[in-house]
């Protein structure tokens, strides 16, 4: 299955990936090859097969509505690239 330049650019935008122009052709080929490989599944007759919702045949796993202690505040923020007064600090997110 062939994937277009536009589709690659859209997927890149949605995934927040920057693909330089000179890499576009290479990416296009790699993704198309993967899709073609998976396409083999279309040979199967799935007329009476229900779509699978989960890989493991397991259902209805719950927990009771009980509060357990949360992470220590400092530990919770220890992976934050930037911190400000107990908040996770992130770059401005609105787009012009």
């Amino acid at each position, binding site marked *: 299955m062939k994937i277009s330049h536009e589709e690659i650019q*859209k997927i890149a*935008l*949605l995934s*927040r990936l920057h693909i330089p122009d000179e890499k576009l052709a290479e990416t296009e080929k790699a993704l198309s090859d993967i899709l073609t490989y998976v396409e083999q599944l279309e040979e199967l007759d799935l007329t009476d097969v229900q779509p699978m*919702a*989960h*890989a*493991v045949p*397991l*259902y*209805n*796993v*719950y*927990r*009771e*509505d*009980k*509060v*357990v202690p*949360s*992470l220590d*505040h400092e530990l*919770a*923020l220890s*992976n934050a690239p*930037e911190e*400000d*007064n*107990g*908040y*996770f*600090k*992130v*770059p*401005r*997110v*609105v*787009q*012009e």
Partner: protein
Amino acid sequence: MKYETVVGLEVHTELKTKSKIFCGCTTEFGGDQNTHVCPVCLGLPGCLPVLNKKVLDYAIKVGLALHCDILGFNKFDRKNYYYPDLPKNFQTSQYDLPICLNGYLDIEVGGKTRRIRITRIHMEEDAGKLVHSGSTISTSDSSNVDYNRTGVPLLEIVSEPDMRSGEEARAYVEKLRSILKYLDVSDVRMEEGSLRCDANISVRLVGDDKLGTKTEIKNMNSLSALQKGVEYEALRQAELVDDGGQVVQETRTWDDGKGMTLSMRKKEAENDYRYFPEPDLVPLTISDEQIEDARKTLPELPDAKMARFQDEYGLSNEDSRILTALRETADYLDATVKAGADAKGAANWMLGDLSKMVNEANITFKDAPVKPEQLAKMMALITKGTISGKIAKKVLASMWDTGKDPDVIVEEQGLVQITDTGAIEALVKQVIADNPKSVEDFKSGKGKAIGFLVGQVMKASKGKANPGMVNQMLKEELSK
């Protein structure tokens, strides 16, 4: 009217559970930033979310109350988008197999009942909160994120585009809020964000079947903002089309201060959420037995209560609607009737003096210092003739202030109605002697003059004389 407004609503309501939807962090509001977080709601690698059973129970209840089909097989999906209020870069939600489908809600606007269809209800997690460093988001260099709200359980209730005005949209949310309140599954406070509402709005020529291009309006944080927002946006679109323009499909925000909707300039490609089944959560199966058990736990809902108040209590449509809007109010009336009071009389006291007091104190009937049994006792004192209706207003006010029983107040303040013939006769004679002009008027055929004289006797008795007796004795005395 050339154009018709078409509105569909998406309502998000926070569920009143103790812990979050997929982890044990508390849902309590107002903790210090990032103190109600754990690896699961922060989306740290290697963690495993597990569904809070109560969220499922609540969702089934709401679905049944809104006449939905409960799906025997439903599952969670990932809704992918990048925004820092979601630490995982996806929201765990339900997509093609949500917990509920195909329900409805009846609303009444202008004396007419309209059925608003409900497309679906699904369970999902709430997002965190962004605090911007500048005064607005565009003037900020950075944002600060608090993830305490991330993972608080939400139900999203999506309606069909069945509403035709801002007033209908408001009535729908009002009714929905009332039902959620009856079910006791959410605080439903719009101003505090525990109930949020987005509106999809379009306009079309009256008689047209095809839907026009819609816009989505966010940030309407009260019932009046919702109504105004819908009305403004419909008018904006109608004017745009009238001027030969075209509505652009976009998300707009309601600015309550300016009283208008503003474009949020979101890129079209951003709205591709690439849903896929959530591999970390297993699917849910719900048996018919489970659904029937849930149905048994439903309380009597506003529509049923309203019908009963009309049938059993003989109340008007309008009165029963007001009295059933809140469960606390309806329960109060039921309790007062159970304590022996006449339903219509009790309803009148509740709609009149008591409503005023409850509203002024900014509480519900549940917390009123006058208990249903006390109201019933007070009404019995009127029936027995111990106090007049007029004095009863005074007694009720004292009951409200002191919490004391009505008979105690009547006793303490000496408010017992004067039914002693001799005492009333003396007052009547005195008033006749003091008001020769009115007596003259009455005798010369001006029947109205009797009202003034009755008033004077009541005044002289400090309101305590039995008005019926005063009336009768005055007439007797004057016709002598």
